């Protein structure tokens, strides 16, 4: 791997303090067998420190969505190990896996995956209710989260009455319902126009500033550019890694012909 790290790292990327939130070793996922076998994820190693935002970029079919599904316990790996906050999670039982998906990981998807018959606030409180919080505590937390994403006044709207950007903000609020140590986002801006993309970018930036640990898989350069660390994936493997954080190049002017 090729790392052209700038020495001035954001303080938020400092993971020397302890166990990484996510640790992955030799992760593999293959489909089919014999000649038709596809290695969707082919030996991935990854560490994500607390409060770090990591983006995985790659062309469609490179295996980045499968990777996210493996890390979130939505699919089972064919091999390798995954630790979440120091605890092995590959190979744990179905019940434990379901509990982990509910409380330890927040998911954000390209197509929002909101319950269409529930209002915004009902969508956001659902994970807390499923995790056994009291209806009152769950509602309070949901209202607070909608406030955070700037949708307090839309709390009682159905998803169908919200714009794409607003729906994704509701989905992000829902992902944070149980204060998960890790948020996984799969093409979070994939279905959004440019203005809505900026809304979501701002939100991810503010989450990042508040110390949320984030893994984003995407082919949208704009959201990838908000990450501390960027990994390129091809044919199921990581092929390049770079740290984006650090000092300004001071060369913006050159991009518009203001410098010679």
């Amino acid at each position: 791997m090729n790392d052209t790290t700038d020495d001035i790292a954001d303080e938020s990327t400092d993971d020397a303090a302890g166990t990484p939130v996510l640790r992955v070793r030799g992760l593999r996922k293959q489909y089919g067998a014999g000649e038709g076998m596809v290695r969707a994820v082919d030996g991935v190693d990854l560490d994500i420190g607390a409060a770090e935002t990591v983006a995985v970029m790659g062309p469609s079919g490179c295996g980045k969505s499968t990777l996210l599904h493996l890390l979130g316990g939505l699919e089972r790996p064919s091999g390798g190990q995954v630790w979440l906050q120091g605890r092995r999670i590959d190979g744990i039982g179905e019940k434990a896996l379901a509990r982990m998906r509910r409380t330890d990981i927040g998911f954000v998807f390209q197509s929002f995956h909101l319950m269409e018959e529930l209002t915004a606030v009902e969508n956001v409180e659902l994970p807390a209710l499923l995790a056994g919080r009291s209806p009152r505590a769950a509602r309070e937390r949901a209202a607070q989260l909608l406030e955070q994403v700037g949708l307090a006044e839309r709390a009682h709207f159905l998803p169908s009455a919200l714009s794409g950007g607003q729906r994704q903000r509701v989905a992000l609020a829902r992902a944070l319902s149980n204060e998960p140590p890790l948020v996984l986002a799969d093409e979070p801006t994939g279905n959004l126009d440019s203005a809505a993309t900026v809304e979501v970018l701002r939100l991810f930036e503010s989450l990042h500033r508040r110390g949320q640990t984030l893994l984003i898989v995407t082919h949208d350069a704009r959201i990838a550019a908000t990450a501390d660390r960027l990994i390129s994936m091809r044919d199921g493997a990581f092929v390049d890694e770079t740290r984006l954080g650090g000092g300004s190049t001071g060369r913006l002017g050159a991009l518009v012909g203001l410098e010679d």
Partner: protein
Amino acid sequence: MHQEVILAMLAKEPSHGYQLRARLREALGPLGEALNAGHVYVTLTRLEKAGLLAADDTDRSDRSDRSDRKVYALTPAGQQRVAEWIAEVSWPKPDLAQFHLKLITAAAAGLSDPLAILDAQRRELLRRLREAQRAAMAEPAHSDAALLLEGIVLRLQADLRWLEACEKNWTLRRNRS
């Protein structure tokens, strides 16, 4: 910075150099920081010599700096030049052919892996995108500077999409050989 920009800024009304600088800073936001302070004055002097503007330094009211005392105004030739410049249809050309040929020659001679060149280029563009995006988000919405920064973000996105197409193509070539 084109001389014509400075010239066109005087089309509204005769101005001091420092007034032009302030207007440039407002229009360019953080991008204006790249501008050398002396640049405006050098350009004004050059344009004066070319007869495109005239300087009047009879105003001795408040500024002590000699060059800042002058008020600059367009001459008829200057007005003519501004009108031509406004009507001109020119656009900067990104040099894609150079990068394209870099990939081809590097691959042909075995100098470097085109995919590694692409990765390095993408890293650089993403750093710039990050910077432009942050600067854009820090600007008040709908400001002149925000609009310019959006242009930079969109261009970088277009370049990154082209790199994606290059990557796809070079990956295919590699897999075929």
